[in-house]
C-alpha cells in the first residue's frame, strides 16, 4: 500500500470520500436540497480538470498557467455542434478530447522549449489566444456566450438530461480519470516524467529524450481538461469564453496546490476545499473574496505543499511523525 500513502491521505479517507460522493444525490433528496447535487457536480468536474493539471504540474513540475483554455475548448466542443443541432455525445466528447490534445500539442511544442517563469507566461499567452479566438467569433455568441439547448445524447444508452444520471456520469468519469492518472504516474512513462521534474539534465544524460515525454504528458493533461470542459458544457448548458480567463487558470493551479501537488487525490481535496469554502464564504458576505484571498496568501506563506503539507507540518511540530 506504499503507493497509496504517496497519494497523501490514508486510503480509507479516500474511499469514504468517494462513498460520500456516490451517496450524495440520495442525501440531497432526503434533506430536500437539490442544489447540493449541482454544487457537487461542479466540484467533481473541476476536480477532473485539476487532476489533469496535476499530471503535469504536480508530477511533472510544469506550471501551466493556461489550463482553463482546455476547459473552454471542451465546452465549445459540445456547444458548437449543439448550435448546429448535433447532439451526438460520442462525437462531441471525441471532439473535446482531440481538439484539446491538438491545441496542447501545438502550444506545448513551443512552450516546452522554455523553462520556469517563461513557461508559466507562455502557457498563459496561449490560453489568452484561445480566449480571444472565442471572444471574436460572433457566430457563436462571442462575449455573450452560447446556450446549449440539449445535453449530449449517447445513442439512447444514457440520458444525461436527467441531473441524477449526469451526476453519476461525472462521478464515474472522475473515478476513471483518477484511475488513469494513477496508472500513468506509476508506469514507465510516469517514472520518466517525475524523473525529469527532479533532474532533467540527468535524465538526458542517462538517455531519455525528455522533451518528447514531457510533450506527450502535456497533451494528455490538456485532453483530460478538455474532457472536463465537455462535462462542464453539459452541466451548465451555457458557455462563455470567460471560462477560459487567466483568473480561472490561476484558480485551477490553486486547487491543485491547495490539495497537494503531486499526490493522486490532492487535487480533488483542493477543489473540494476551494469550492465549498467559496460556497460558504459567499453566503456569509458578498465580500467573501477578501478572506478567501487572505487565506490563499497565508496558505502559501506558511505551508508548502498545500493542505497535505499543512497536516504534515503540524504533525511534525507535535512530533507525531511525518516523513523525515
Amino acid at each position, binding site marked *: 500500500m506504499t503507493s497509496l500513502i504517496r497519494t497523501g491521505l490514508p486510503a480509507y479517507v479516500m474511499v469514504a470520500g468517494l462513498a460520500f460522493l456516490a451517496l450524495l444525490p440520495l442525501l440531497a433528496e432526503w434533506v430536500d436540497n437539490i442544489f447540493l447535487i449541482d454544487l457537487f457536480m461542479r466540484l467533481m468536474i473541476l476536480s477532473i480538470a485539476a487532476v489533469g493539471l496535476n499530471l503535469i504540474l504536480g508530477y511533472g513540475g510544469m*506550471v501551466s*498557467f493556461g489550463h482553463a483554455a482546455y476547459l473552454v475548448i471542451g465546452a465549445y466542443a459540445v456547444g458548437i455542434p449543439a448550435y448546429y443541432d448535433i447532439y451526438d455525445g460520442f462525437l462531441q466528447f471525441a471532439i473535446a478530447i482531440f481538439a484539446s490534445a491538438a491545441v496542447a500539442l501545438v502550444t506545448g511544442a*513551443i512552450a516546452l*522549449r*522554455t523553462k*520556469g*517563469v*517563461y513557461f*508559466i*507566461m*507562455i502557457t*498563459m*499567452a*496561449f490560453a*489568452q*489566444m484561445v480566449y*480571444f*479566438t472565442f*471572444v*471574436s*467569433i*460572433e457566430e457563436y455568441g462571442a462575449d455573450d456566450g452560447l446556450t446549449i439547448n440539449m445535453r449530449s445524447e449517447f445513442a439512447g444508452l444514457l440520458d444525461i438530461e436527467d441531473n441524477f444520471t449526469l451526476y453519476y456520469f461525472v462521478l464515474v468519469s472522475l473515478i476513471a480519470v483518477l484511475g488513469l492518472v494513477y496508472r500513468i504516474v506509476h508506469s514507465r512513462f510516469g517514472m520518466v516524467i517525475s524523473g525529469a521534474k527532479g533532474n532533467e539534465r540527468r535524465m538526458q544524460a542517462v538517455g531519455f529524450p525528455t522533451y518528447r515525454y514531457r510533450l506527450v504528458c502535456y497533451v494528455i493533461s490538456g485532453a483530460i481538461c478538455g474532457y472536463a470542459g465537455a462535462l462542464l458544457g453539459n452541466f451548465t448548458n451555457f458557455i462563455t469564453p470567460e471560462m477560459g480567463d*487567466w*483568473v480561472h487558470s*490561476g484558480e485551477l*493551479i*490553486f486547487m491543485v*496546490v491547495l490539495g497537494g501537488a503531486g499526490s493522486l487525490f490532492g487535487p480533488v481535496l483542493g477543489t473540494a476545499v476551494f469550492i465549498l469554502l467559496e460556497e460558504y464564504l459567499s453566503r456569509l458576505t*458578498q*465580500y*467573501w*473574496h*477578501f478572506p*478567501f*484571498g*487572505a*487565506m*490563499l*496568501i497565508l496558505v*502559501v*506563506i506558511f505551508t*508548502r505543499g498545500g493542505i497535505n503539507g499543512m497536516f504534515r507540518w503540524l504533525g511534525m511540530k507535535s512530533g507525531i511523525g511525518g516523513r523525515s
Partner: protein
Amino acid sequence: MDWGLFTIQMLNGVQLGVLLFLLAAGLTLVFGIMDFVNLAHGSLYMMGAYFCATLVQLTDSFVLGVILALPLTALLGWLVELIVVRALYTHDHLDHVLATFGLILCFDTAVDFIWGPTGMAIPLPEILDSHIDLMGGHTFPVFRILIICTGLAVAGFLYVMVAHTRIGMLIRAGASNRTMVMALGVDIGKLFALVFAVGAALAGLAGMLIAPITEASIGMGNEIIIVAFVVIIIGGIGSIKGAFVAAMLVGLIDTMGRSFLDQLLKIFMSSESAETSAPALSAMAIYILMAMVLAFRPQGLFPPKVR
C-alpha cells in the same frame, strides 16, 4: 488610406505603449532584481486610479489629485512589500503567482467594499478636456497627448536614474547579478522595498492617467497586467530599455492591428473572411509576438547582460 486616421491610431498606439511602459517598468525591476513574480502589480494600478479619483473629488483638481495620490500609492506598495512580498522571496515562482493572485482578490474586494461596485469617473479640467486639430479634419484629445508626454518624461527620468546614479547602478547590478549587490554590502532589504514602492507609484500613475478616459473600476488591472507581462518578457526581464521598446511595440501592434488588420487582410483574402478573422488575429497579435520571441530568443530582446 486615410492618413489622418492613421496618425491618430499611431498616437493611440504610442499612448497605450507609454501606459504599458509605466506598468512594465516596475514589474520588470521587481522581477529582475528580486526574482519576484507580482501578479498584483495590476492591483496597484487600480488603487492608484481610485486614490486619484477620490482625491480629485476632494480637492477639485486633477493635478493636485495626481500629486497626492502618487506618494499614497508608493506607500501602499511599500506596505504590500513589507507585509506580504517580503515573506515570499525565498519561495518559488509558483508560490509568488498564487500569493499575489490572493492579493488581487483582496484588493478587488477592498475596492468593492470601500468605493462600491460601480466605477468612478475622474473629471478633467477644461484645458485637458479639449481636442487639437490634426490633418484631414481629424482631432486628437489633449489629454492623450499629456499621457504620452508624461510617459516619455518618466521614461527619460528612469533612464537617467538607472544609467547615471548610484541607486541606478545598484539596480542594474541587481538585475544581472544579485549576489554581487549583496556582496557590496548594500542593505538589500531596503533596496527591494524602495524598488517595489517606486514600481507601485509608476503603476499607480498609469492608473491615474487612464482613469479619466475609462473610469476607475474594479478589476481594471487584471487584463492589462497580463499585457504588461507580455511586454517584460518580450523586452527581457530586468531591462528598462527592453520594457520601453517592447511596450511601444506591443502598444502599436495592438492598436494598429485592431484598426487596420482587416484592410491588410483584404489584400490576401475575401473581404468577408478578412472581416471575421481580423478581430481574432489582432487580439492575438501580441501573444503571437511573445510566443515567437520566446521560441527564438528565450531571454527576450534586451536581456540584462550577465545573469
